């Protein structure tokens, strides 16, 4: 039984590590600021999420698991807020996104 849990936990941790690395690769490969933020959000959500789940399996039914879950909840609320603030600040300061259809500025309506 504990072997099964260990295996599941390992699988989750490795998956989390995989998505963190993918996020890092994306950060380098993407062409501009905004597309890089999309790559970073893979690390934020899938990377951190799978790792937290793996650690929860290691901790079992204890208060440590509760704390790990609370870390997850915290990330769940703060990471999109930070991403949005960053994107908005960049847009306000005039960082032009690279667009597929036609170049340049979004219509300010």
């Amino acid at each position, binding site marked *: 039984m504990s072997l099964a849990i260990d295996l599941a936990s390992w699988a989750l941790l490795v998956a989390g590590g995989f998505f963190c690395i993918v996020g890092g690769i994306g950060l380098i490969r*993407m062409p501009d600021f905004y597309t890089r933020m999309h790559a970073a*959000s893979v690390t934020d959500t*899938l990377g951190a999420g799978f790792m937290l789940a793996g650690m929860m399996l290691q901790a079992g039914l204890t208060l440590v698991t509760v704390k790990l879950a609370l870390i997850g909840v915290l990330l769940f609320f703060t*990471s999109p807020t930070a991403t949005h603030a960053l994107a908005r600040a960049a847009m306000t300061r005039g960082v032009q996104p690279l667009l597929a259809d036609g170049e340049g500025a979004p219509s300010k309506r």
Partner: protein
Amino acid sequence: MLRAANSVVVLFAFWLLLSGYFTAFLVTAGFACAVAVVAFAWRMEVIDHEGHPMHLGLRPFAYVPWLLKEILKSGWQVTRIILDPKLPVSPTLVRFRPSQRTDVGLVTHANSITLTPGTISVEVGRDSFLVHGLTRESAAGVVASEMDRRVCRFEGQR
């Protein structure tokens, strides 16, 4: 008043979970802290429908599993794009009108868009969202979406 009492209960439960000590003195101290924090918040007048949205009940908990599933799906798509040697991105901006009425609903919708990899909400307003999508499809996917309908349901609209 009911909202304040409910805040005390939630804060105290939070304190218990984080501390893990159950001696009489510490539990009493924790309860006193919860009451004190709510008293301060009461004086600052931040205990309202926004600071403690208990009128939503348990509906947010029905929304979260669906959102997690969406995060998994779109995260996997973005992963495939990143690992694709051709890097098939087609960044697109899209502006649309969200159908939420309340601030909590709008914030939840905007945060959900940002949380799913492949889409970021850049500008958020009452009558228009500006969303940056990694591909044409992901940008088009946020307009009048399933997410829009589900957030409306959880904020209590039909």
